[in-house]
């Protein structure tokens, strides 16, 4: 009888001893799901949205050179994604293109560190700062035409509230140089919209 009890007990231990109880996991799982969902809701409501500006162009080859207009000044976001394709196409001035690409990469890297505080990297839109930027875009566009690459940069203004005066200063420089033939797009941005550096 005692042996039978021992066998039964051993069998009971065998069948029940190593089972994993799911109850603690499920209870914690549901609690955490509820808390995370709540946190997500709160986060969505109060956190700034990221915004990626892209030009709505039928041709599909125009690429935006973004200029964000803040009350503190302008922040430039040069495109980079398709420049290697331009640089690899046969044609002169390859060295200049490489240098330009390196400058733009450095600019974007610096900007990536300051996405949460763009005002800290905003610069005054003086003519001496704006005109070289326009000439750079013009040079890229000319090089693309010479190398028969379907690529053209245009300026895309993202205008934050109270950034209108910055926009007008830059636009005045553009209007003084119609020979550059640079296209323009513009969009009003909300105060809590933050830039996304992802390129299409």
């Amino acid at each position: 009888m005692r042996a039978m009890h021992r066998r039964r007990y051993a069998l009971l231990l065998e069948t029940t001893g190593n089972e994993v109880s799911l109850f603690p996991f499920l209870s914690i799982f549901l609690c955490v799901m509820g808390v995370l969902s709540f946190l997500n809701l709160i986060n969505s409501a109060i956190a700034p949205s990221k915004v990626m500006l892209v030009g709505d162009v039928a041709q599909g080859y125009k690429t935006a050179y973004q200029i964000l207009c803040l009350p503190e000044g302008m922040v430039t976001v040069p495109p980079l994604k398709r420049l290697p394709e331009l640089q690899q196409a046969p044609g002169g001035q390859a060295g200049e293109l490489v240098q330009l690409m390196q400058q733009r990469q450095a600019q974007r890297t610096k900007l990536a560190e300051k996405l949460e505080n763009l005002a800290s990297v905003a610069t005054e839109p003086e003519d001496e700062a704006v005109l070289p930027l326009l000439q750079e875009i013009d040079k890229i566009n000319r090089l693309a035409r010479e190398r028969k690459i379907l690529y053209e940069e245009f300026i895309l203004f993202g205008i934050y509230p109270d950034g209108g005066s910055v926009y007008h200063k830059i636009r005045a420089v553009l209007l003084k140089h119609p020979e550059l033939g640079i296209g323009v797009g513009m969009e009003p941005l909300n105060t809590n919209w933050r830039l996304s550096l992802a390129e299409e």
Partner: protein
Amino acid sequence: MKQLLNVNSLTDIVSNSVGILIIFAVLNIAHESGKTHQVDVPLEHETEHLPAFFIVKDDAIVYLEPERVFFNAMAQARQGNADAGETFDLGYMRLQGEMHPTLEFIIRPKDTVHWHDISELDEPDSPLLQTLDSLDKEKQYAYFFVYDEADLETGAGSGYAMFRRTRAYLKEHGLQSGWRPVDADNPPHFCFWDDEAVCNNYAPSYRAGE
């Protein structure tokens, strides 16, 4: 009897931790990917259409009826009430005019008391919607002067919200639109006697809906 090592607690804790981390990672990825909005911004382009001008300030909008605004201005000028730098009442929607040496004809709103409110966009057959519907999409496009001055902390005060909604309505109804930000230093202005691009640059940038 031999004491077996009980791994129940360890297994529970490990499975809880792994499960929570997986859930957290999935939620984070879903949350981050959903929070980047792509805003399509059209380009300015040439058009044969004529502009219909609007001014947008705070959550209000006013249509600049050419017969009322421009003719009133010319009448004031003929009467000698529109000397350079002096403001005069346009007798329309609390707007004032000013002749400027380079900007030519400037419009400044005194206030938006009689303007159309943003709520009219939600009311069928409201005066604002009647005005927007009266535009001829075959011959006209809408051009907005949007005041961008806002409370820097709350973002309130700029005309952006009103402009976006009006633009969206027009796009649904087949009308192109363009805009520029304006403020006290860069007010809405028109050049009647100057063809320079610096002055007359009202181009549509948003194409109409298909």
